[in-house]
């Protein structure tokens, strides 16, 4: 029982790392909390559902389409609003409110386009045989989702630490002004980071039917809150700290669901409040930004 719970926690932990990773990347680069993060995840889920139901595309093969579509959306969104916001009097609060408005627009458009019914992709697209890991058996969809999440995390690692663009991105994270003064095109780097953040959310969305339950237009705000809890637990503004936050959250969730199921819904909120109050810099605590 305990071995099963811990392994399931690990699988879900990797998945929740992916869910929150984009939010943290965007926060790290732009210092703004993307309140529409969960809504982009929802759109990614609907894209995967649409590809599956119209052409029978397996969610794994939907990933390239998700990435292309959402990088473009992110870059366009950046140039449409962010430069204007950054020059305003109170960029942090105003962008927070603006992104909240965007989240309302996305949710409303999703209801108008897809209706209020719940959608699902059958988990049998990954075969009906469960996968066994260390003597425990799990649904194949869980394992596939965790493997995709791990691959996406590795990709982000190579992007940030092994590429020229990534070096520039980390320079912008450290200091926007100093990065600009060394000749880095801050707007281009940030726009790509926003695109990458939304693409990560969309990829997570493609696997949400197996890990988070059915797809609905109003799932966004809850996912944003959980993602925020995960990145605060790890470390705000440190994208790889998200993995630690995701694992802590995934293990905590599985333990709660096994031993105190009726209180499991409270977990992300209680963890979020406790961490914000006791250790605002997160468990990895690079003191990127204090709340």
């Amino acid at each position, binding site marked *: 029982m305990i071995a099963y719970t811990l392994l399931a926690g690990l699988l879900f932990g990797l998945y929740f790392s992916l869910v929150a990773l984009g939010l943290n990347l965007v926060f790290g680069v732009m210092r*703004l*909390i993307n309140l529409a993060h969960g809504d982009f995840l929802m759109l990614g889920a609907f894209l995967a559902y649409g590809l599956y139901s119209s052409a029978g595309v397996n969610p794994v093969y939907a990933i390239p389409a998700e990435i292309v579509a959402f990088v473009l959306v992110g870059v366009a969104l950046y140039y449409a*609003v962010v430069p*204007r*916001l950054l020059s*305003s*009097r*109170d960029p*942090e*609060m*105003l*962008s*927070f*409110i*603006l992104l*909240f*408005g*965007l*989240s*309302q*627009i*996305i*949710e*409303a*458009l999703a*209801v*108008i386009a897809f209706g209020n019914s719940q959608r699902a992709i059958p988990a049998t697209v990954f075969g009906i045989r469960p996968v066994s890991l260390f003597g425990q058996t799990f649904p194949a969809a869980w394992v596939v989702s965790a493997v995709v999440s791990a691959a996406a995390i590795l990709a982000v690692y190579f992007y940030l630490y092994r590429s020229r663009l990534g070096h520039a991105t980390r320079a912008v994270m450290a200091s926007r002004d100093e990065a600009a003064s060394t000749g880095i095109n801050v707007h281009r780097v940030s726009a790509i980071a926003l695109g990458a953040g939304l693409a990560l959310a969309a990829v997570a969305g493609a696997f949400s039917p197996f890990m988070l339950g059915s797809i609905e237009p109003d799932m966004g*705000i809850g996912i944003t*809150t959980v993602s*925020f*809890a995960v990145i605060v637990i790890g470390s705000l503004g440190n994208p790889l700290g998200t993995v630690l936050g995701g694992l802590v959250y995934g293990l905590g969730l599985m333990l709660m669901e096994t031993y105190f199921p*009726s*209180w499991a*819904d*409270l977990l*992300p*909120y*209680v963890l*979020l*409040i406790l961490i*914000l*109050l006791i250790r*605002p810099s997160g468990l990895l605590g690079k003191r990127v930004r204090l*709340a």
Partner: protein
Amino acid sequence: MPRGGWYSVGVVLLFALLPFVYGNHALLFNMMMYLVLAQGINVLFGFTGYLPFGYVGFFGAGAYGASLAILLVHLPPVPALFVGAAVSVLVALLLAPLLRLSGAYFAIASLAASEVVYYIVSNPHLVSLTQGPYGISLAQVYNSGASYATMVVVLAMALAVVVYLRNSHMGLALQAIREEPISAGFAGINVVRERIRAWLLSAALAGLAGGTYAWHVSVFYPKSVFDLNISVFAIVFTLFGGVATLVGPIMGTLLLYGLYNWIGISQPEYFQLVFGIVIVLLVLFLPNGLVSLLRRVKIHVP
């Protein structure tokens, strides 16, 4: 009469007299409720800069506090409302450490806090106390006339609070803290105490509104009194009109809740779309709300 006093008297009289000539009492009641909540948000966000996404937590705590006082202690409704407000203030006291956070962190932490209150109240393990997810029925004290009149009184209290803040040292002190907390401290303002006072005041208003709402509808579920949309509406109404003024939240509520009533009840998704677009345009082009248009043409805004 302090500045803004006559406006407040006018608004209160309007809502006291309209039921005699206009039949849609549910609309009038909900509009008053949102006027109270918008002014509560105004007290906190307008005067101190804390944006409470979880404001609905106080509304729900007030609704449940008042209902349980009626059901378990058999208090009459009006004293029970004060119990509800006291429960909200108690929750606010417990959550006061959240004020150490700032900006977006506070906003999200307060959202999380309201979810915690919601999940505790609706937990199936507490059915014997709160009836858990099955909701509350106050059919034995149902009285739509008296609860309407009570909401008029609550509205008068909310407007009085804002008129007081617009004309008093406390209001000035809070705005000084909002702009420059450190300088305000140097000027002899007790920053922590003033912030907590505004926080408790705003929670008490939401608690009174929640209790009166519970009495007025008399049957409700935890999901409906902890609905995040209640926070969202009150926040956007306030921002749309203009914060830290008396008339801003009134204008915002009358216009946007009127719009909601017009298109939002039959087609909520279209209202939500308009609502989202209003928010985006507001931030980009009119960050100080409608009242900044009045100020631009040199009209004094109380």
